[in-house]
């Protein structure tokens, strides 16, 4: 229900904003801004004492980025993934160095991970802060309204997590990668995307894998 409501809000906002978007696009802004909401049809695995079996869940992702289109500069980005107590949660903010075409992604975030006492029962109960370094790229496919995106990042745990256990240091670390193809309606900021995201995470030597087919809608402002 909440997911449907969120998607409805994004659709309404996108439709109402198209005239505004046109004007903003006409300004040929050298800054590229994107806002999107995605549904992640996720498949997750957690390494535990029991049987390795996938768990399916639907996650909501909210994503924004603000960065130069062509010239190198500094941009910002942020993302929230999750929704629901039993689903993995993920939040991060980034500084982007470069342009929309290619940028280095430096950020901080936090992710829910396994409780080492009961990893099968509580796979996403503990919050692990992390730093990340990665790259992201968004390239147009010629003059068509299509573009492709790529993101990859290495995550490394930082600080201390809230769980005090006898399992030693969590040594949280992980990788995340993502590709997608987007269609942007000509003359409007409306955009839709289809993508794939995979993430590997490990804490207390307990591995988790999360892969998802992503479908999203959003708005893009500034030059393509």
């Amino acid at each position: 229900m909440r997911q449907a409501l969120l998607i409805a809000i994004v659709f309404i906002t996108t439709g109402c904003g198209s005239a505004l978007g046109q004007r903003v696009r006409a300004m040929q802004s050298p800054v590229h801004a994107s806002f999107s909401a995605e549904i992640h049809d996720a498949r997750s695995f957690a390494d535990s004492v029991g049987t390795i079996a996938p768990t399916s869940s639907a996650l909501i992702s909210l994503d924004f980025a603000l960065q130069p289109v062509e010239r190198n500069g500094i941009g910002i980005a942020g993302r929230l993934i999750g929704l629901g107590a039993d689903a993995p949660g993920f939040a991060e903010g980034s500084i982007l160095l470069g342009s929309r075409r290619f940028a280095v992604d430096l950020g901080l975030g936090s992710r829910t991970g396994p409780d080492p006492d009961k990893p099968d029962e509580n796979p996403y109960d503990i919050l692990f802060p992390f730093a990340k370094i990665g790259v992201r790229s968004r390239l147009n496919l010629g003059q068509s309204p299509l573009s492709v995106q790529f993101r990859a990042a290495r995550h490394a745990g930082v600080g201390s997590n809230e769980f005090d256990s006898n399992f030693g240091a969590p040594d949280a670390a992980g990788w995340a990668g993502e590709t997608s193809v987007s269609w942007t309606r000509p003359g409007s900021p409306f955009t839709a995307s289809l993508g794939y995201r995979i993430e590997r995470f490990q804490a207390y030597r307990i591995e988790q894998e999360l892969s998802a087919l992503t479908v999203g809608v959003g708005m893009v402002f500034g030059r393509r």
Partner: protein
Amino acid sequence: MRALLLALLFSFVALRPARAQTPQSDPVDALIRRVVNAVNDLRYTDAIREGRELLSAASSLRPQQEIRLRFALAAAYFPEAEGVQSPDTAVMQFERVLRIAPDAELPAVFAWSGLDSLFTIARARAPLAAVIRPNVDSFALRGDSASPLIPVVASRPVRFRLSTRRIGGAEVTHSESSTPSARAELSLRAVDGGRVLLESGEYELLLTAVDPERGDTVRNVSRLRVEGAAPALTPVPMLDGARIRPETLTPHPWRIAAVGGVMSLATFVIADGMRATGRIATESTADSRAGLVGLSILGATGWAIWADRAGTDAEAVRLNAADRAVHEQKVTAVTKENARRLAAHRVTVQLIGGGR
């Protein structure tokens, strides 16, 4: 020294009982009248002596005074009595007269056939001369109107051109030109072509006369003092070329293929390369949906290559036209406002030195 000389002459006139004294407010006029009377009384030597004394302070004389004095001297140098005639010196006086007043005529009081002929010869031999002969010493001038007409004369038909140049400046701005004629009336302008030509300061008023037949040119320079601050004008905005989008589309199929291919390949690489490495990897298979996305990217790439054709970018054309229209509106508004300010520009022009 000249002032002292004139003072002595004035006191001499005042103390000496005049034989034919007429009410004169200007003592110099009285002195000139003495020279004229001497010529009329056939006392040419006295006339020449007194006239030359007066001419030694010629820069203090008004143009009309100098003209009358030189005519009197010419008559004294070339009297009817033969033997005392000095035609070259008389012609020299005529030439000086014609330099001051190119349209001058020999006063009847000095006229006789020989002197008439000599004056005609002098007029023919005199170099080209042109002068400004303003009717008023000062006048107000608005940006949206021309000044009162300023009469100009030359010693023969010429093409006149009236210009101004700020003192110390190099740029000459032309106000008006005439067709070939010995006389014309020209006007000054405070504003022309969206530019302020006259504002507070001192200027040279340049009268250029070009004889189209003989090809010689003369320039007469006088001075103007102008009061009136220039209006503040808004710079006319320029169209930013960086905002204009390319309106022609050039296909880049290989570039699209490379981008799409790499992105599609990356999908398969991360789907396998970023998987967990322990039991999860060994006891499960990779997510097959990565293939769906990878193939979707390939399909999108193929469509993009097919759609990427040479032609006109209609959206760029439309957006450029909109940008140009907005720019035109800004230019029109700025131009209109500047024109209003220029039209309201008001100066007072004072002629502070006659051309010589």
